[in-house]
């Protein structure tokens, strides 16, 4: 599949077109980077993103496909060779694209950019664009291709084959720990959206019986009719959003749904356990269908709304917080903006999806370019839209919503005074009016990114309905995010439980059997207990929990990306040589630099706001000197323990990443010297019988 340069008129026209796109894209990026006015229009971001993606797909992905990976459209894929009508099914590329994108698109690209807006719109946007096309898209594409060539083997298996048992074990351990942190963080995001909000709580609670109803419909009434069931479910969900409004206004009913963060955390833990042990068709599967349809529909609607309305962004390009004193999470611009935005730029989790079911559905290797590279481009675009939605807020409002009480002060008057002193004016009246418009009692300290994203989305959508129905749009946005956060929570618990059963099955075969119910209950309890602990502690943390846990999640996720890139680099080194290995090797080096710096800072920084150990030492000295009082005095021992736990976890991630890198380097060196190294495990060539 060589690049063909024709001398026909069409060829010249095509070249002119791409030059024009390149100029347009460069101007848009330049406009964004150099603009120093009060506001900038979001259209610049859309144009910049689309041009960058078009050029990256047309040139870079084609280069990778034809010169590095050597995609072979004449080769039979495992879907064709091992076709069994169930897992291995050659499927139309657009259907596979839809499945793959629905699987990788989670809440990550919505939350990360919203938090990273703390630094201003510029750093996050540049990382989403550059990190995406050079890092994340490459990772997804390359891992997908290598999995196809290995009969759809998973990342863990490929790591074991390419890097030896150490690599495989590291990958498995990494995946399990990421899952725990991820679920806890996402649970915290939902809890913060629901606390003291009867509307949000009742709507989210209603999604459970709705899912059960859809599940029963799909299981017993009309099996397999996914479209009908989803339409039914979506209609009921919209009614639930409206119904939440009635609950909110009813003086007696609203007390049933008005809870503080900690009781809500316990309810989510109970829900998570139930969802993990109940049959999959009752809760998990219907939730998954509903959240997929809602997610796709809402993302498309948001994209259209932004393109039509072209809202103005009020956040500046850079804020003073690039120095590390930010309220939402502490730490300087480098490395923390690269950690905070994981899923929108490069996310290790995607490599699990790319080596999961997707490679078993691909009918022709040539499809992998569109699905692997293109799917991640779309995810990157979702992240850009989240950045836009976060930045259309007034900066003062943005910080008022996202800053924890422990940083700005628990009382509204104190909070607005602190935030205004930073140079972002906001008033109590402004926030009260906004809260009333959104149908909430308060919007202060609703950390985690979901509420501020919902406010941004409500503002954008409500322009379509003439500035009214803000509260409905807001709670629709909250429901939409909560829906697929909770689906990730259920699915993630189940996966972690399978992996734990798999591991324990080596010691006690009974526990390894997924059909033995006591084993299911025990392992589910362990997994839920693990993330439940972090979730519950997060609700009691004065800094809001997101402050310490989101960087932990980001580091863990990109450690997994580093492992995936190590696998890819070693395969490329063995099969195509050192220069080909650069396309994954360079992003790998960057990731290592970023995650190592971030991990080191989070463990050893002397600033208590940044470093876990410094924070623990600070609390310990204050405790000993009797300077603590009230709730902080009671919580202090637990907070100190959590600091040590978080520091330990961070150290574990760092160690895992470097062990795998070391193994990779060792193998590449041996290959370079001509010594024996584990051979490539590609399946031999077989010609395809399918037409194109």
């Amino acid at each position, binding site marked *: 599949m060589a690049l063909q340069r024709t001398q026909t008129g069409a060829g010249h026209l095509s070249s002119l077109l791409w030059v024009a796109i390149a100029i347009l894209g460069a101007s848009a990026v330049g406009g964004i980077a150099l603009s120093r006015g009060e506001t900038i229009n979001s259209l610049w971001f859309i144009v910049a993103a689309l041009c960058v993606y078009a050029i990256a797909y047309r040139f870079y992905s084609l280069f990778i496909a034809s010169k590095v990976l050597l995609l072979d459209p004449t080769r039979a894929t495992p879907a064709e060779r091992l076709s069994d*009508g*169930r897992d291995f099914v050659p499927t139309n590329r657009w259907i596979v694209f839809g499945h793959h994108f629905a699987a990788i698109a989670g809440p990550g690209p919505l939350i990360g950019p919203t938090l990273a807006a703390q630094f201003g719109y510029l750093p996050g946007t540049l990382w989403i664009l550059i990190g995406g096309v050079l890092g994340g898209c490459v990772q997804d594409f390359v891992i997908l291709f290598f999995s196809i060539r290995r009969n759809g083997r998973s990342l863990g298996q490929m790591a074991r084959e390419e890097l030896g048992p150490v690599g495989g074990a590291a990958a498995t351990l990494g995946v399990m720990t990421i899952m725990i942190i991820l679920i806890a963080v996402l649970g915290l995001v939902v809890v913060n959206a629901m606390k003291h909000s009867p509307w949000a709580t009742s709507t989210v609670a209603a999604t459970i019986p709705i899912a059960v109803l859809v599940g029963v419909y799909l299981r017993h009434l009309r099996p397999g009719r996914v479209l009908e069931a989803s339409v039914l479910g979506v209609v009921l969900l919209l009614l639930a959003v409206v119904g939440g409004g009635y609950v909110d206004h009813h003086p007696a009913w609203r007390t049933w749904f008005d809870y503080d963060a900690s009781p809500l955390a316990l309810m989510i833990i109970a829900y998570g356990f139930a969802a993990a042990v109940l049959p999959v068709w009752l809760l998990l599967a219907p939730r998954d269908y509903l959240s997929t349809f809602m997610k796709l529909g809402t993302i498309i609607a948001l994209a259209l709304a932004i393109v039509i309305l072209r809202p103005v962004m009020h956040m500046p390009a850079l804020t003073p917080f690039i120095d590390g004193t930010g309220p939402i999470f502490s730490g300087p611009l480098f490395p923390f903006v690269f950690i905070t935005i994981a899923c929108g730029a490069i996310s290790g989790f995607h490599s699990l999806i790319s080596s999961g079911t997707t490679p078993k559905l691909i009918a022709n290797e040539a499809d992998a370019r569109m699905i692997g590279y293109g799917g991640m481009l779309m995810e990157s675009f979702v992240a850009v839209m989240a950045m836009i939605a976060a930045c259309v807020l007034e900066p003062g409002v943005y910080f008022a919503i996202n800053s924890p009480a422990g940083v700005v002060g628990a009382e509204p008057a104190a909070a607005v005074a602190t935030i205004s002193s930073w140079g972002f004016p906001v008033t109590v009246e402004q926030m009260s009016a906004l809260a009333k418009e959104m149908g909430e009692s308060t919007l202060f300290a609703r950390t985690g990114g979901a509420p501020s994203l919902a406010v941004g989305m409500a503002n954008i959508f409500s322009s379509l309905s003439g500035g009214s129905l803000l509260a409905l749009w807001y709670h629709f946005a909250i429901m939409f995010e909560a829906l697929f956060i909770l689906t990730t929570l259920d699915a993630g618990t189940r996966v972690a439980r399978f992996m734990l059963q798999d591991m324990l099955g080596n010691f006690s075969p009974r526990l390894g059997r997924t059909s033995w119910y006591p084993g299911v209950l025990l392992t589910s309890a362990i997994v839920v207990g693990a993330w439940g602990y972090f979730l519950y502690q997060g609700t009691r943390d004065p800094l809001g929990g997101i402050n310490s846990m989101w960087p932990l999640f980001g580091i863990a996720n990109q450690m997994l990306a580093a492992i995936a890139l190590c696998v890819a680099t070693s395969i490329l080194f063995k099969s195509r040589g050192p220069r080909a290995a650069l396309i994954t090797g360079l992003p790998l080096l960057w990731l290592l630099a970023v995650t190592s710096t971030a991990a080191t800072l989070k463990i050893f920084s002397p600033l208590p706001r940044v470093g876990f150990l410094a924070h623990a030492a600070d609390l310990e000295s204050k405790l000993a000197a009797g300077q603590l009082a009230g709730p902080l005095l009671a919580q202090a021992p637990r907070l100190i323990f959590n600091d040590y736990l978080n520091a330990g976890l961070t150290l574990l991630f760092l160690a895992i990443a470097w062990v795998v890198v070391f193994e990779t380097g060792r193998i590449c060196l041996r290959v370079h010297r001509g010594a024996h190294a584990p051979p490539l495990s590609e399946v031999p060539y077989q010609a395809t019988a399918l037409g194109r």
Partner: protein
Amino acid sequence: MKALRRLRGWLHATLGQCVHQFNGGAAYEHYLAHWRAHHPEGTPLSADEFHRREQDRRWNGVRRCC
């Protein structure tokens, strides 16, 4: 007029295909085709049974991302 009718026919066919596809039709057809090709004797599962089994089977491994 003829063009309009043809457009309507095409829309009907494409949307109908989409609905059929997303309503689980294509998955069952794949299964039936595979069964006829590889298991000449024996009876394949009915549509309802097939979809129930699929649901149980599909939730192994990593399905959804962050």
